[in-house]
């Protein structure tokens, strides 16, 4: 499914996106208009610069990482399908989400997938582990120059020490889940998309 410059979305496309992401019809059309408004190049895809224009992302210390999450490996354009796929992580878990199909492939907005998304933000080199260096980088982005490097190092060490259960001095995804067990990820990592 290629991207199309036309402003109208075909019904089949909507249906497919609906199937894949669970967004409702109106949400998809609404997000599509948002997509096109972000798309300054008007070629049906978004580039990193397009994302950088969103103030929330420009300010966010992890903004680059979040933007990266929209792009498949090695590409620097994302079409509407990809855009929606990433956004689907943030769809709130609805009460009436059909619970009959727990055994089915998990929807993109499940707790695990939300956590995985967050995990990827910190896992800079994509080796499924958060190492001390990666933590340090993130920390530097978050607190800037206000804390000495030494203290930053000790913070990173402490963080790993708290979370690490198998002693490899890295935080694996499982350990990450464990750490955030009590955090209400379902709620925190949800955006109330308009219906």
């Amino acid at each position, binding site marked *: 499914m290629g991207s199309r410059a036309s402003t109208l979305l075909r*019904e089949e496309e909507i249906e497919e996106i*609906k*199937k894949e992401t669970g967004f*409702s*019809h*109106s949400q998809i059309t609404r997000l599509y208009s948002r997509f096109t408004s972000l798309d300054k190049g008007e070629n049906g895809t978004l580039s990193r610069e397009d994302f950088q224009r*969103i*103030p*929330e992302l420009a*300010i*966010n*210390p*992890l903004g680059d990482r*979040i933007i990266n999450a929209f792009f498949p490996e090695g590409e620097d354009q994302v079409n509407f399908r990809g855009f929606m796929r990433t956004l689907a992580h943030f769809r709130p878990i609805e*009460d*009436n*989400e*059909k*619970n*009959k*199909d*727990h*055994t*089915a*492939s*998990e929807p993109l907005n*499940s707790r*695990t*997938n939300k956590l*995985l998304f*967050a995990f990827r933000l910190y896992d800079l080199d994509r080796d*499924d582990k958060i190492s001390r260096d990666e*933590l340090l980088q*993130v920390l530097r982005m*978050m*607190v*800037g120059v*206000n*804390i000495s490097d030494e*203290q930053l190092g*000790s*913070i990173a060490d*402490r*963080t790993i020490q*708290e*979370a690490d*259960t*198998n*002693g*490899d001095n890295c*935080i*694996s*995804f*499982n350990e990450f*889940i464990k*750490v*955030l067990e*009590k*955090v209400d990820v379902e709620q*925190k990592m949800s955006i109330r998309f308009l219906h």
Partner: protein
Amino acid sequence: MPRKRDAAAMDDVGIEIDGDLSDSDDGVAKRRGNRRQAGGRGAAKGRGRGKKADSEDEDEEEEDEAPRGRRGANKKKPAKKRGGDDDDESEDEGPKRKRGGGANKKKGGKAQDSDEEDSEEEKGKKGKKRGGKKGEKEEEDTKGKKGDAKGKGKDKDDEKDKKKKKKKDDSSSDSNSGSDEDEEESMSEGEMAQLMEEVEEKKKLIANIRNKPWRMGRRLTHLREAQQFVDKFEGALGKGKGRKWYAYKVMMTKKWIKFQRDFENFRTACIPWERKIKEVESHFGSSVASYFIFLRWMYGMNLVLFGFTFGLVVIPEVLMGLPYGSIPRKTVPREEQDTAQDYSVLMDFNGYCKYSVLFYGYYNDQRTIGLLKFRLPLSYLMVGIGTFGYSLMLVIRTMAKNADVGGGDGEDGEFTFAWKMFTSWDYLIGNAETADNKYASITTSFKESIVDEQENQKDENIHLRRFLRVLANFLITCSLGGSGYLIYFVVKRSQEFANRDDLSWYEKNELELIMSLLGLVCPMLFETIAELEDYHPRIALKWQLGRIFALFLGNLYTFLFALFDEVNTKLEEEQSIKNASIWAMKEYYANFSRMVNDSEATPPPMNPADVIRGPCWETAVGIEFVKLTVSDIQVSYLTILIGDFARAVIVRFLNYCWCWDLEAGFPSYGEFDISGNVLGLVFNQGMIWMGAFFAPGLVGINVLRLLSSMYYQCWAVMATNVPHERVFKASKSNNFYMGLLLLVLFLSLLPVVYVIMSLPPSFDCGPFSGKEKMFDVVMETIDLDLPAFMGTLFSYVANPGLIIPAVLLMVLAIYYLNSVSEAYKNSNMELKKKMQMARDEEKNRRNNTDSTNQVMKDLEDLLPNRSLIPPAPPEPEKPPEPETKPTKTKPGSAGKGVNLQKDVALASPNPNTRGPVSRPPAPRGGGPGPGGGRGRGPPPR
């Protein structure tokens, strides 16, 4: 290789279920889509097109269904068999399958049948509805379609029959989703009712889950379970006549919940100064913010007190009472009238101020005023007492609430740093300024945690520390005792001085000078001594607060002492004036009657400005309190202006041309003085409580002060202060502040109650003039306004024979409650210990593999080429692998694996979820053919 096969089986099953489910799921989704469209969603664009596509889809879907079911069934069979001989697998899949299987065996495809028909019916209805909504043209269209669908449905029946047979043939086969839907459809009325009840119950559980005294894990489990249950069966319930109504109800509940959430958001947005405080907090840490939160709380409380005082006392008097100048107490005396409007006089709250509603003396002793017969004196007394009652209640309730919060998550420091690291950024921040604040606050919170951490890890010479602490406390006790004696000495001397006239300036102001000197020097001294103790800054702050509080008590004590002296002299003076005034009045009347020579004629009243009047000690006390408050405001504002602002300006701008670095060196910028400010606030409040009875206007002044102080101090702290060197986290509850406040409240309660109960009020001013005691107002009301038996009742209640047992009972109750709470506390501690132990144990168990790991690692270090060796030896890692493996692989399939396990585990412990469903539908046990037992549907075709 059991494990591998296991995994394979799981995969297989997963995929099967997957395929099957997503299909049936589609059906649901589409149906839902239809419904939505029928509701008239799409306005203009693409409506017709969408509808057509939809209807086509429906048809296709229906045609598809039969073969799919067959296919699914066939495929299921091997999977299940494989699962059967595999423990792990059957554990995961067991319950559901068993359940489904049981149901299926009994009722076979009938359920499926009814399902389809139901949906058809629904479609038919939809069609009608759609037709009704849209124009005639479309109606035709839909009718055609409907007919079409019906025809298809008939075809379908045949197909279904076939399918049913197939199903019965391989009766063990089933698909998860299919069975689920079967179960839902095939329920009798009784079961429906039961299910409905259960759903309601679960809903209630979801609503109340926050209040349940459970641990978080259990709560979550229950919540998830309940939500699943509700989601699963809510839809099933509505099938039939009540469906629309039910759907409507569900929708309204959801709307209502959403509204509540929005309202909650709105309420949060309405909390005053939240942003200001957050800003301060992000730069200065929670300890400074705790002061502002305290200030805000105080403002809220004073606002209520203000409402009481003004609503029930001041405004009625202004509106309905006699106007100014009508009676002596409301008139400035003639000798004062010339200067009554001078600025200096007004600033001393004399002149017109003194004879205004601000003070006690202005109020008249008429029993009722105005058309409404408002009992002002009674109301005055009640407001005076109610102020204390309300404050007490509020302080104690807040303390109890805070204690609750503090116990909950105060010490839950398992993943402090990790949480801060992973969850602190607020992703919705889109404003550069806010982002700066957030950066600052993250930094501050990290710093706070570091301080806590350092404190925890401090290993120290315990004996030296103890010795130093004892020494410090000794020193401080000495200096407190010394200053106490000094105050006592000075007060005694000032009483001596009071009788002499030849006083130097120093002797006149000795008391004030000494007091302010002590207040200046001692806190600094305490702070220096506290260095010895080396407490965590949070605890150090508490000690500091307690010590300065003890010092300030001396202040309070001298003030009250002086005041009571004054009151006593005024009381004596009053006695003579009372006689004089009565004599003068008589004289006036006598003169009048003698001049007019007519004993019948009533003399014109004396000009109120000329009447001889008493000193009105209540007003004097009120003026004293108001003056004190105002000067306190002035002093604290000036201190901020000079001590912080001027200092900051000098440091900032003189730094360019100075010998040494002013910013880093000696004066530097000021830090925010938490202890001083909190105590200032507490003592100020004490003044308000004491003074409010004598000067109702004081509460208004205080509200203004707190309001301005909030803005002023927020500005000052942001503009002129620097954060503390060791930013520390305030304890979550402000209970220490509250404790101080409670103490001050009690201390200020005492003199006021003493005055109300036992001092005679002035004879010619205030609402209680002419009474023996102020409290007599209540007695009078009881006697005159309430029926007689109430009076006797009160006299019984006031009987010592009743009061003493009541007091005894209360003491017993306190004792009992205290011991109960003690016991709870103990068991709480015990449980906490147990939890900690369990946690440690778990960690140890995990780390056991780790310890060997460590050895291996050391060995590896010795090897020359480390990087070639796999980082972790495989053997010890093995045991936990089955858990970790799936998640480490690809996300999609991995998450599924984990989730699958979890979900089943969640569902199994609660028997209720399965209860109504696993049971074979009794009334239909040997039911007739397909559709026979479906009591409410249309007869089978």
